[in-house]
């Protein structure tokens, strides 16, 4: 339960971090370290060098710019939970954070780290997917932005290249017609969910448009249930639950069998659909 030896360097700037990443074949970025250090302790990861980004100035801010809420790579859960900008402009995130692990983990863990790590059972990747976030990535040639629908590539794999780092999350601002909902089933408070669902929609008359349903803990990545989205837009909740059979393909694990996960996914969908249809949030 001790990490294998590794070198360690503090990056002074994003450019410096990228330079260090380029100079080493087997480097890992460390931010909050709440997933990575556990993996190091268990030797599931044994990088040659850790590049610590915690001292890079300018990555700890939450701000509104160009119609987006920008969350820097070092914004921690505890900080986001206290942020009025997050509760006003990204109420889905504010709803989800209390479900993320425990208070001591939220002291250090970062939203950006969770998205970059892309754990299929984590809340933040699914929230980003539901919100239609844009992920800001820095590399040797400067910054680029990737739409969240193109970001997750496989188990713990994302669009972030080997010599690149995530620098910010950009979320469309919440508005009067936006609806958000969040739910998860976990065995115990703070455990990874057996099944979870983050959802957004736009209220249109008595119905819903632009529904985005992002499930987590049901596959290799957070995944959208597009058949169910279409059914909800048509006002058919039971049709949406039925559509999950085509949308989701979970494997059973030690916490829940495939059948249990599918049953819980349907139960969550009914709950979340009712929440989305409620009057203005």
């Amino acid at each position, binding site marked *: 339960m001790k990490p*294998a030896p590794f070198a*360690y*360097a503090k990056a002074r700037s994003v450019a410096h971090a990228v330079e260090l990443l380029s100079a080493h074949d087997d480097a890992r970025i460390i931010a909050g370290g709440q997933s990575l250090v*556990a993996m190091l302790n268990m030797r599931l990861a044994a990088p040659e060098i850790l590049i610590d980004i915690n001292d890079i100035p300018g990555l700890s801010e939450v701000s509104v710019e160009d119609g987006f809420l920008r969350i820097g790579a070092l914004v921690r859960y505890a900080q986001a939970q206290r942020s009025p900008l997050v509760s006003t402009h990204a109420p889905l995130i504010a709803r989800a954070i209390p479900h993320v692990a*425990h208070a*001591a*983990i939220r002291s250090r863990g970062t939203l950006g780290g969770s998205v970059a790590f892309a754990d299929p059972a984590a809340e933040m990747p699914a929230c980003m997917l539901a919100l239609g976030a844009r992920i800001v990535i820095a590399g040797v040639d400067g910054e680029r932005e990737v739409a969240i629908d193109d970001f997750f590539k496989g188990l713990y794999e994302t669009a972030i290249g080997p010599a690149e780092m995530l620098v910010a999350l950009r979320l469309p601002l919440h508005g009067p017609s936006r609806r958000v909902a969040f739910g998860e089933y976990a065995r115990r408070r*703070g455990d990874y969910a057996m099944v979870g669902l983050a959802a957004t929609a736009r209220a249109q008359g008595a119905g819903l448009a632009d529904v985005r349903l992002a499930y987590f803990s049901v596959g290799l990545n957070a995944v959208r249930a597009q058949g169910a989205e279409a059914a909800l837009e048509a006002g058919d909740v039971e049709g949406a639950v039925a559509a999950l059979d085509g949308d989701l393909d979970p494997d059973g694990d030690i916490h829940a069998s495939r059948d249990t996960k599918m049953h819980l996914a349907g139960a969550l969908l009914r709950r979340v659909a009712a929440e989305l249809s409620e009057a203005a949030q």
Partner: protein
Amino acid sequence: MTAAQMEHEITLTVNGFAVSERVEARRHLADFLREDLGLTGTHIGCEHGVCGACTVLVDGEITRSCLTLAVQCEGKSVTTIEGISDSGAVADLQEAFRARNALQCGYCTPGMVITASVLLDAEEMPDREEIRDHISGNYCRCTGYHAIVDAVETTLKARAEAGR
């Protein structure tokens, strides 16, 4: 600027005292406190962030010392169970743990006390459900938690009374 080395000199504050040590980059804070500084009140349970036995305060925030590298604590202020015990900051909470039998084997107790300590300064008094939620990341295999929640609640109420 720290070069990419396997070992680093670090300077930090531990329980109010300045400490300078040379550490391996891979040394986590729990081992640093226990093995290098002899502060064995910080316990190690699971060593992957699940059990909460190793909880300490880093710059006043509850933190898993098994998920924090010592080298990352350069310039920070770390408080362990020894620190908050010696200062008397949680003497009432510790007495409530004793009086209510909120510990049996005691292995989880340092982490539990540290975790609960940040509730004692909360602006709004948490209810039992919120206390349970707050300590949900700290495992106790003896008590069934009920007595721990009692001890925390008793202390909170007594402090609220005294503050009135």
